[in-house]
């Protein structure tokens, strides 16, 4: 890294966690600053460090100060985040530190400053940390545009990127900068010691909690100094934390850390962790990134990791030193997860990682950036276009889209050109675009950023005065999949969803015996495509089964004998009747999100075909739909035709809340709706109301509007996984194998159990166990 620094080259350092990446990134700057000596001229920022996490910026400040102090270097290091006080921010503007540590949002703010160009003129180096965690997101788009801006301000600055191991370093290198292609690949650390926990108890057929193995998890914690226990959802975190404390006879200091705890609580846990006061922390992805915890010597992944890259990241949290092997234990929560965990362990051993697809930059983010640029200084349309295209996500941006975005920023970009008088940015006689007035610029600066925090909604009963009693809280995305009238299980009871009002989801008790929509508890990350194909390969190759516990092997054999095993590239569908219901179970292994979308679209089609579908469940491996009438007459090749992604998808989207929510996010990022007004912050209820109004009006009068296109693209990409579903449908075309069975198959048991839990809420645990035993007996007989 020092040599690359002397060559003045942009460089991406790819190294495993624990390799001292951050210090390596700073070293050339420290050398340069130490050699330069004290200066008399005006101060300026020498090195700008950008981290995706506020906490990380502050952490690095602390870690960097140690060598600077010990060597008595004349270097000023300061951080600047959303939490930094106004006085300090003001001072940093007048007297910049040598090294400034900040976040992508603050960089976007810098870009919207008047005088930003002068401030960064003498910048020598930009360090972007944890690139792998940010490049493939809207925040990444915003950061990438900010970097292109910095390149313009400071043509001589070096760009340095730091990344954990990624599957495609060349693509990430291009994301960092278009100057050269220098890469430094860190020496791989000692290979991790991984094992899949083969519990004394039998592997459960279904579920997400791994409750069966909790005793063993607790015993393992006792053998380690400090353990990090990773789970996939907040709900799993709460559950595991409670279970561990139930077992905690030794009174071990076990803590909990996840995103919906208050910042203060989280900081307390982090501080105790840093001091070595905790024996274990149950956490979600909030601790994935590289804050240094020191003494962690064991990582436990509870429930399947869903992707090999994430697993590598998490394992790397143990023994944060390159020369010591990390120790990790995977605890699968079900039989399919057992397959997934084995596949993940093999993938990590081979250093095979699943990659994030290369992203096309979002236009709502570009709109925000263009407005920021105008707030900073007048711009030339062609020059800014050239600059923007140096940012990798926008490299292919067409001139036509560019003009649309600028038109949107200026007048709202409506087909009806009635706002030409009220431009937010105007083109002067000199041909340059500038912000209309200081008031408009001020309002923009108050609303910069691309993080729209995922909202939780309160589940409430209708009340006499306003919304009634609160039943609980759940993520907004859950309700986005529902239309009013749908029923679901929460806390063991069936509820009917009535609608969303502000930040409340209004529900009533339903008399239905069978809920229509599955409840949650599953990972928010779907099973990665890469891991899914490894699981399919493992299933179809009996010689690979020897690593699996006996009961899981027996299960695979029974599936092979009673039905058949899913192949590497085909789609297995089973139909059978049970009780007074008819079932269809499909095994695409393409992840929960794609499966949910598929199940919803299939349900619509089956409804039209007169089969009378009642409900569905979908998980990472399979989906099941059940109906009143038999599905034997269904033409499955026609049912799974790709044309479902056309009209059926559109029609379903129009009815769903998801589009309104997605539109709101796009409108906030693009600046059509302002989150903060001078003087007061709009509460989310107000934002929700006006966004819905705008969405309805736009859809009627201007269906091709830029923001509607942004919202559709976002929904297709993230919330529905339409791309992956499309790939699935084309992969299985002409390769659908239908098994018409007399009774439930061994593979269908997990789906049937999920359905059973939701169909018979309130029935006693004992009764449920008997029912499940009967189900297993039937499938395995």
């Amino acid at each position: 890294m020092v040599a690359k620094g002397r060559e003045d080259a942009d460089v991406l350092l790819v190294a495993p966690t624990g390799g001292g990446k951050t210090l390596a990134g700073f070293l050339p700057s420290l050398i340069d600053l130490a050699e330069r000596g004290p200066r008399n001229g005006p101060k300026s920022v020498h090195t700008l460090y950008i981290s995706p996490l506020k906490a990380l910026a502050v952490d690095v400040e602390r870690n960097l100060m140690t060598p600077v102090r010990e060597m008595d270097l004349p270097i000023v290091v300061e951080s600047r985040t959303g939490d930094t006080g106004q006085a300090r921010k003001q001072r940093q503007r007048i007297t910049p530190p040598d090294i400034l540590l900040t976040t992508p949002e603050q960089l976007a703010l810098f870009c919207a400053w008047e005088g930003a160009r002068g401030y960064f003129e003498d910048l020598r180096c930009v360090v972007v940390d944890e690139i792998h965690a940010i490049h493939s997101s809207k925040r990444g788009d915003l950061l990438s545009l900010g970097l292109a801006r910095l390149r313009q301000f400071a043509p001589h600055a070096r760009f340095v990127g730091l990344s954990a191991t990624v599957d495609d370093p060349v693509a990430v290198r291009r994301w960092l900068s278009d100057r050269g292609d220098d890469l430094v690949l860190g020496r791989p650390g000692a290979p991790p010691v991984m094992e899949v926990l083969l519990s004394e108890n039998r592997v459960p057929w279904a579920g997400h909690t791994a409750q069966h193995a909790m005793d063993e998890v607790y015993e393992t914690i006792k053998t380690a100094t400090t353990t990090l226990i990773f789970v996939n959802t907040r709900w799993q975190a709460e559950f595991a934390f409670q279970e561990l404390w139930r077992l905690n006879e030794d009174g071990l200091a076990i803590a909990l850390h996840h995103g919906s705890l208050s910042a203060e609580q989280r900081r307390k846990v982090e501080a105790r962790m840093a001091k070595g006061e905790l024996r274990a922390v149950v956490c979600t992805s909030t601790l994935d990134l590289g804050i240094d915890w020191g003494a962690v010597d064991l990582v436990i992944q509870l429930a399947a990791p869903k992707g090999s890259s994430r697993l590598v990241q998490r394992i790397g949290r143990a023994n944060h030193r390159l020369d010591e092997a990390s120790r990790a234990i995977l605890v699968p929560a079900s039989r399919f997860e057992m397959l997934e965990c084995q596949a993940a362990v093999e993938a990590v051993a081979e250093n095979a990682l699943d990659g994030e697809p290369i992203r096309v930059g979002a236009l709502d983010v570009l709109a925000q950036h263009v407005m920021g640029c105008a707030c900073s200084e007048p711009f030339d349309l062609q020059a800014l276009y050239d600059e923007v295209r140096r940012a990798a996500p926008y490299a292919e941006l067409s001139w036509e889209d560019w003009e649309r975005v600028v038109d949107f920023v200026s007048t709202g970009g409506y087909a009806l050109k009635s706002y030409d008088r009220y431009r937010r940015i105007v083109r002067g006689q000199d041909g340059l675009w500038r912000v209309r007035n200081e008031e408009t610029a001020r309002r923009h600066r108050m609303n910069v950023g691309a993080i729209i925090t995922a909202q939780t909604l309160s589940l409430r009963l209708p009340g006499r005065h306003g919304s009634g009693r609160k039943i609980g809280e759940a993520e907004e995305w859950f309700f986005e999949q529902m239309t009013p009238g749908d029923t679901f299980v929460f806390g063991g009871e069936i509820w009917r969803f009535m609608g969303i009002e502000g930040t409340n989801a209004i529900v009533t008790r339903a008399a239905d015996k069978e809920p229509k929509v599955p409840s949650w508890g599953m990972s928010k990350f779907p099973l990665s495509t890469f891991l899914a194909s490894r699981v399919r390969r493992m299933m179809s190759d009996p010689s690979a089964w020897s690593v699996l516990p006996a009961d899981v092997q027996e299960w695979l054999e029974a599936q092979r004998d009673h039905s058949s095993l899913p192949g590497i590239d085909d789609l297995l569908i089973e139909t059978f009747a049970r009780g007074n219901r008819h079932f269809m179970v499909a095994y695409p292994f393409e992840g929960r999100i794609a499966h949910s979308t598929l199940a919803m679209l299939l349900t619509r089609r089956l409804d039209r075909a007169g089969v009378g579908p009642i409900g569905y469940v979908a998980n990472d491996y399979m989906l099941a739909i059940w109906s009143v009438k038999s599905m034997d007459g269904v033409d499955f090749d026609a049912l799974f035709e790709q044309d479902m992604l056309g009209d059926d998808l559109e029609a379903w989207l129009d009815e769903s809340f998801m589009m309104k929510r997605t539109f709101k996010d796009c409108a906030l990022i693009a600046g059509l709706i302002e989150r903060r007004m001078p003087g007061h912050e709009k509460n989310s209820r107000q934002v929700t109301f006006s966004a819905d109004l705008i969405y309805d009006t736009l859809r009627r009068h201007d269906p091709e509007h830029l923001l509607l296109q942004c919202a559709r693209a976002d929904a297709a990409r993230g919330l529905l996984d339409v791309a992956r579903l499309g790939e699935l449908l084309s992969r299985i075309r002409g390769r659908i194998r239908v098994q018409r069975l007399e009774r439930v198959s061994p593979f269908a048991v997990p789906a049937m159990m999920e359905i059973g839990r939701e169909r018979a809420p309130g029935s006693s645990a004992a009764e449920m166990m008997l029912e499940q035993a009967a189900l297993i007996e039937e499938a395995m007989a």
Partner: protein
Amino acid sequence: MVADLHLEKGSAYAARGQMLPPYDTRETLDRLQAEIEALDPRVTVLLGDTLHDGSATTRIAPDDRERIAGLARRTTLLWITGNHDPDGPKSSSGDLAGETAVEIGLSKLVLRHEPSPDPTPGEAAGHLHPCARVKGTAGSVRRRCFVTDGQRLILPAFGAYAGGLNVRDPAFSGLFACPPLAVALGKKAHAVRWGLLAGD
């Protein structure tokens, strides 16, 4: 009789730099035209706040201006002035079509924009944008509504971008001699007793 059209509310925001979709006037006039075509009234009373602000007439599109003129040829458009549009259709940048009045007495009826603070038999007014929130076993829904105690009537806002105020809001208290009835708008109008109305 329609109240609170708030024409050109979108462009009022645009003039301040927030570029809301400019289709609200068009949408509101679509609705008004549909009503006039369906009912063919001799007189159409606009119950005040027909325009969102004093300079709306300088922003309104020529074809929307022409549509108002077209409506005025079919029916007598009678503008009652409101707090948002004290000049009615009159404007230095060219009047919109229609007659103007501050209020109208019509036999036993008084038509005015802002309801008088005490129970007033025979009064019809707008201004408050009443909204009813109804909950029942079938769920919860919030709709614009008429409110009446049989003595006086308050009309819902008609404009596409006009927000609503829950009838349980203190602004409505004291206006009615007895608990009023809300008539919520939907595919048809639904009369709802006061006791079944919920706050926000």
